[in-house]
C-alpha cells in the first residue's frame, strides 16, 4: 500500500499515545482532550497503564469524532510513540492504515511498515529549551491537525504553568509554535487530511472522567465524610474530596486500614453524617465485617468499589467486573442491601447522589460498583444537574421515650442521632430489642430479622428499571450491566440489526421486576461481561430462574472494544 499519497481521517479518528510511565502521557491526554473539546470536538479518552511510577509502557487512546463517543475502539488511526518499546507495546493494534507519527529512531527497530512520518520532536524540544518540551511539541503537532486555535493552546499552557517561571511558560509557547509549524507542512503537502465535524455547542459542554463525576455525585448527595485507605483505582475519589473538603465542609480521613475506614463510615452515619467508603476489591475484603455491622445496626452506608482484576492483588491498574457476587454476599448474616452500577459518566454522578438518599431512606448499605475503565475514561457530556435529585433527609429529633428499633409496619424505624432531641440512641452489633439493647430473646430475634428483611421488598419495589435499547420486537436480547453500556450501544448502532436489542442494568441488585418479561420475550439471550464466570448471568438466574443462552466474556484486564462486540454479535 502506498501511503505517500496521504492518510485521510474522516468523522472519527483514534489517536494512541504510548510511552513510559513518568513521561507525561497523562498530561498530554489532559491537554489534548480539554483543548479539542473547547474547539468543539467530541472526544473520548481512556488509559491502560502498568502498576509502576517510572518506565514500562502505558498508552492513552483518544477518539475525536463528529458525533458523541464514549467507548474505546481497537483501531489505531494515528500512533504517537514517545519512546522505544512503545510501538511494540501496541503492536497488536497496528494495521496497515495506522499512521505512526514520531521520531523514527525510537521505532525503527519495532516497525517495518511504511506508514510513518519522521518528525524531529526532540531536536525541536532541545532547540526550544530541553527534552521536557517534547510533549508540548507533540501535542501542538496533533492539535494543529484539528485546526485548534493556537491562542487557545497558549491559554492552556499559561494556565497549566502558572506559578512557574515566566520563561517556562514562554518556552512552552515557543514549543507549541514549532509544533504547529511542523504540522502545517504535513497538511500543506497533503500527507495528512482530517475531516472531523466540530460543533459550537460542544465547546460549552463539560468533560470529566468517572472519578470526577462519581465524586461530584457524592457531594451532590450530601456526602460530608469519607474515610479511606489508598487503593487503585479508587483513590482519586478521596483525593478529589480532599481537594474540595474545605469548600463543601467534608471530613476526609486517610485511615490506618480499610477496617478502620469502614468502621469510621458506620460511626459517622451514627453521628448524623452522610459518609462514603471508597475502595477496590482487596480493600473491600477488609471492610466486610463492618458491612455486616451496618446490616445489624440498620445503619445507612454508601460503599464504592472500583473493581480491578483479582483474586488478591491481581492486576492493580487494570479493569474487571469481578466483584459483583462479592458485593452481594459480603458480610456475614442476612440483611438487605442495594447495588448500583453506573454505565456512563452521567450515571456515575446521578447514581451516587441517589445512593445517599436510598441508604438513608432504608437504613441499608448501598453499593456503587464501578471499574478502572469507567473511572479513568473521559468524555464530553451536556452537563450535570445537582438539583435533579432532591436531597432527602430522614433524621428525626428524638423524644424522651425514643426507641431506635421500634417495630413498624414497613420495617423502617425512624432514625435519630445522638445529641439531637431528648432521647437516647442505642445501637448494638448484638441482636437487640427495640431500644437497641443486647438481647437473647428468641422472639425478639425473629421479629428483628423479619423487620430487617422486610426492607428488601421495599428496596426491590423501588429498583431502577433496566433500559431497553433498540427494537422492541427483538429476537435476540443482549444483556449487560455497569460500564459496558456505551461500548455495546455503539457496537449495536454500527451493526444496525433490527433483530437485536440491548437491555442494560444500572441497578444489579435487587433487579427490577420487569426483568423476567424482557428475558422471556427473547428467542435468544446473550450476556456481555468483563469477568470469567458471567456473574450477572448467574445472578439473573438466581433472581428470575432464567438461564442466559450465550456468554461473551473478557477478563484479560482490558475493557471491551467496539469492534470486539460487533464481531462477537455477528458470530
Amino acid at each position, binding site marked *: 500500500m502506498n501511503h505517500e499519497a496521504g492518510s485521510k481521517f474522516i468523522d472519527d479518528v483514534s489517536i494512541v499515545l504510548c510511552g513510559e510511565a513518568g513521561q507525561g502521557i497523562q498530561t498530554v491526554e489532559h491537554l489534548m482532550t480539554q483543548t479539542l473539546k473547547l474547539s468543539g470536538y467530541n472526544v473520548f479518552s481512556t488509559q491502560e497503564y502498568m502498576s509502576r511510577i517510572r518506565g514500562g509502557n502505558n498508552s492513552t487512546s483518544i477518539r475525536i469524532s463528529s458525533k458523541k463517543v464514549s467507548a474505546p475502539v481497537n483501531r489505531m488511526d494515528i500512533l504517537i510513540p514517545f519512546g522505544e518499546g512503545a510501538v511494540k507495546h501496541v503492536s497488536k493494534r497496528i494495521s496497515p492504515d495506522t499512521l505512526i507519527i514520531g521520531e523514527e529512531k525510537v521505532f525503527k527497530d519495532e516497525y517495518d511498515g511504511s506508514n510513518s512520518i519522521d518528525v524531529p520532536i526532540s531536536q525541536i524540544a532541545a532547540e526550544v529549551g530541553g527534552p521536557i518540551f517534547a510533549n508540548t511539541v507533540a501535542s501542538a503537532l496533533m492539535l494543529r491537525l484539528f485546526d485548534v486555535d493556537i491562542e487557545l493552546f497558549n491559554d492552556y499552557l499559561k494556565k497549566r504553568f502558572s506559578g512557574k517561571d515566566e520563561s517556562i511558560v514562554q518556552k512552552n509557547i515557543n514549543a507549541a509554535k514549532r509544533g504547529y509549524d511542523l504540522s502545517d507542512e504535513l497538511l500543506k503537502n497533503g500527507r495528512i487530511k482530517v475531516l472531523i465535524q466540530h460543533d459550537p455547542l460542544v465547546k460549552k459542554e463539560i468533560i470529566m472522567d468517572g472519578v470526577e463525576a462519581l465524586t461530584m455525585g457524592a457531594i451532590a448527595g450530601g456526602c460530608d465524610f469519607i474515610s479511606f485507605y489508598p487503593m487503585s483505582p479508587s483513590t482519586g475519589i478521596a483525593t478529589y474530596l480532599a481537594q474540595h473538603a474545605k469548600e463543601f465542609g467534608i471530613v476526609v480521613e486517610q485511615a490506618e486500614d480499610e477496617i478502620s475506614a469502614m468502621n469510621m463510615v458506620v*460511626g459517622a452515619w*451514627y453521628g448524623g453524617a452522610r459518609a462514603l467508603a471508597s475502595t477496590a476489591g482487596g480493600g473491600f475484603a477488609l471492610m466486610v465485617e*463492618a458491612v455486616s455491622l451496618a446490616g445489624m445496626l440498620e445503619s445507612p452506608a454508601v460503599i464504592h468499589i472500583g473493581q480491578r482484576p483479582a483474586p488478591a492483588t491481581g492486576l492493580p491498574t487494570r479493569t474487571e467486573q469481578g466483584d459483583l457476587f462479592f458485593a452481594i454476599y459480603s458480610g456475614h448474616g442476612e440483611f438487605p442491601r442495594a447495588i448500583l452500577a453506573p454505565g456512563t459518566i452521567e450515571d456515575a454522578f446521578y447514581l451516587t447522589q441517589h445512593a445517599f438518599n436510598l441508604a438513608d431512606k432504608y437504613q441499608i448499605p448501598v453499593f456503587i460498583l464501578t471499574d478502572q475503565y469507567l473511572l479513568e475514561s473521559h468524555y464530553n457530556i451536556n452537563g450535570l444537574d445537582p438539583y435533579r435529585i432532591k436531597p432527602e433527609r430522614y433524621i428525626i429529633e428524638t423524644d424522651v421515650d425514643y426507641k431506635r428499633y421500634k417495630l413498624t409496619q414497613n420495617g423502617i424505624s425512624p432514625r435519630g*442521632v445522638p445529641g439531637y432531641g431528648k432521647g437516647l440512641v442505642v445501637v448494638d452489633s448484638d441482636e437487640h430489642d427495640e431500644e437497641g439493647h443486647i438481647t437473647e430473646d428468641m422472639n425478639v430475634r425473629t421479629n428483628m430479622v423479619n423487620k430487617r428483611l422486610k426492607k428488601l421488598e421495599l428496596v426491590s419495589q423501588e429498583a431502577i428499571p433496566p433500559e431497553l435499547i433498540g427494537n422492541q420486537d427483538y429476537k435476540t436480547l443482549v444483556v449487560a450491566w455497569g460500564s459496558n453500556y456505551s461500548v455495546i450501544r455503539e457496537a449495536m448502532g454500527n451493526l444496525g440489526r433490527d433483530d437485536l436489542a440491548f437491555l442494560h442494568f444500572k441497578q444489579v441488585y435487587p433487579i427490577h421486576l420487569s426483568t423476567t418479561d424482557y428475558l422471556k420475550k427473547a428467542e435468544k439471550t446473550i450476556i456481555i461481561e468483563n469477568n470469567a464466570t458471567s456473574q450477572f448471568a448467574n445472578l439473573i438466574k438466581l433472581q428470575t430462574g432464567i438461564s442466559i443462552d450465550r456468554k461473551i466474556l473478557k477478563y484479560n484486564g482490558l475493557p471491551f472494544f467496539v469492534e470486539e462486540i460487533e464481531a462477537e454479535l455477528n458470530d
Partner: protein
Amino acid sequence: MDKKTFDMENIDIAWCPGCGNYSILTMIKRALTELEIDPTQLAMVSGIGQAAKAPHYFKCNLFNGLHGRSLPAATAIKAVNPNLTVIAESGDGCTYGEGGNHFIHAIRRNPNITNIVHNNMVYGLTKGQASPTSPHELKTPVQTEGVFAEPFNPLSVAISLDASFVARAFAGDIEQTKEILKKAILHKGYALVDIFQQCVTYNKINTFRWFKDNTYYLDDSYDLHDRIEAFKKATETGKYPLGILYINPKPTFEDKLSVYSESKEPLFKRERDMGKLTELIESRSGF
C-alpha cells in the same frame, strides 16, 4: 445533678459476681454525674467482650460495635459532632489485641475522646484464653505451659507515641479511679485510662489481692509532663504505678478539621451548597 441520672432499672447484668466491671461501672456513672454530663450529649462507644457490655447498663447514647473497632467509630462520631462527649470503653483483648492497630493510630490522630480499657489480663467472654496483657505465668486451656509472648504494655506504647493523656487506675480504688476518669474526660485530646481489674473466674494470678500488693500511686512530686520519666514509670517492673503518667497538651483531630474552622455546628445540621457545586460542575467546560 441527680445522682441517679445514669441509673437504669430492671437490667439483667451479664457479669460474674465479684467481677471488677461492677465497680468500674459505678465509677464511670459517678464521674459523669459529678461532671454534670447530660446523657443525651454523651456517646459511649464499645466493642465486644464482657467490659464492652458496660454501657448497656447505664443511660447514654451507645454505639456497641464490633470487636476491636471501637476507636475508629468513636473517632468518627466525635469528628462529625464535636459537641458530644465521646467515650470508648472496652477490654484489653478488644482494645490491644483485635484493635491494636486502631489503638496506635487513634493515639497518633488524637481525637478528643476518652478511652477506658478494662484490663484484667485475660479473656472472659471466650472463657479464659490469654489476652495481650497476660503475664507469662498465666496457664490457660490454650496456653497450657503459660504465655510465651511478651505482655503488651499499653502505657509505654502510648507514651512512645507521645499520647496526649496516659493514666492507669485500679478497679479496687473507687475514689481515686473516679478522679482519674474525671480528669481524662475533661482532658482535651485522646485520653487513655487503663484500669487494672480482677477476673474472678479466669485469672487466678492477677487477683484483687495481687493488684493491691503490686501497685502504688504516683505522688505529687511526679512531673506529669516529663515524657522520659513517664516512659520509665510505664516500664517499671515490680510494682506498677497508678495515676496519671503523662499529659501532653496538643491540638486535637477535630481542631485540625477544616469543617470546624468557622462553625462548630455538627455536620448533620448543615446544608450542602448546591450553588457552589453547580459552579464546580460548570467549571469543567473550560480549563
